[in-house]
């Protein structure tokens, strides 16, 4: 349920960027969301539609790029992608404590006019 406040933070940045660019309308917004961020993309979409109403971002296309969790295996000295979020190396099955990606929540770019 915190997708609403996360989307609100994103939208504040979007509107600030729109103002700075002297744009009047936002056509699309791209976000990168890590699978370990605890955020559900569908809930973000829902929150966006509710929040963007009455702003220049109304009707903009929200493009959400998932970022898989990547861990570093200290035994095999290599990075591995964790599909089910477990920090377990697929080769040596040792657990890794070093997360390299997967928690990010980023406003990447936007299309305006």
């Amino acid at each position, binding site marked *: 349920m915190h997708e609403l406040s996360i989307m609100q*933070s994103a939208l504040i940045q979007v509107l600030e960027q729109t103002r700075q660019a002297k744009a009047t309308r936002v056509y699309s917004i791209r*976000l*990168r969301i890590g699978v370990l961020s605890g955020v559900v993309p569908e809930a973000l979409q829902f929150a966006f539609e509710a929040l963007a109403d009455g702003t220049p971002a109304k009707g903009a296309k929200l493009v959400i790029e998932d970022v898989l969790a990547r861990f570093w295996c200290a035994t095999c000295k290599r990075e591995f992608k964790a599909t089910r979020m477990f*920090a377990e190396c697929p080769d040596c099955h040792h657990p*890794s*404590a070093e*997360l390299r990606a997967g928690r990010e929540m980023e406003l*990447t770019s*936007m299309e305006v*006019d």
Partner: protein
Amino acid sequence: MCKECGCGLPGENPVGISAHHHVHSHEEADHEHPHGTVVGKHRILEVHRAILEKNDRLAERNRGFFHARGLLVLNVLSSPGSGKTTFIRETVRSLGKRLKTGVIVGDLATDNDAQRLRESGAPVVQITTGTVCHLEAEMVANALKQLDMNGLELLIIENVGNLVCPASYDLGEDLRVVLLSVTEGEDKPLKYPPIFQSAGVAVISKTDLATACDYDRKTALANLRRLTPKAHVFETSAKTGQGMDAWCEFLIQQHKKLKLEWGNR
């Protein structure tokens, strides 16, 4: 701004925006990506900013403030009913004069938890979040203004009972402490990976009820290890006091260690 992970912290080298690393004609484009230039009739703005940048910045400010005061800070997280409040109250009692402790507690409504925590004798500030399901760095900064910080060495922040949302919000803590009570089922860490993955300490609480609910210790510990292999694990019962000595000793050592680190800066 770091452009790699969106962490909100300044990158080592400011990175310029380049539109293309490869050549293709837009007419034949088989993939979509931002260009940093005018495409068609619309302008593309490259932003690359952490969505929670503001919270991250305020959390860093809190962290600096805490370190300047020599405070060890814990962010305690769990689902509702895992025993956070009782665990914190007994932690404060067990620590006694060894580590002077203050508590900030977050709930949607009521100050019942603050009242329970005051029984320990510690200064307590209650944050009522209304409908917000997690604490944010700004709420903690505001609560600090009301907290008697005199001589404080340990600050325990009891987050809103929720195993999902608080994971995203840094409060400026040194340690994230996630509680898992034996009554919740051994597979809880597998069901809520992000929060367990982010834990520096995992506390298994209510061990006095283990037999009554057929708690499988081996499976619970194995599940925790799969998600957070390096976290310190403590098995405690705030009711009987089991495991509380080891936990308190750990806090005292952590405080000493951090004070030494800050002193050397």
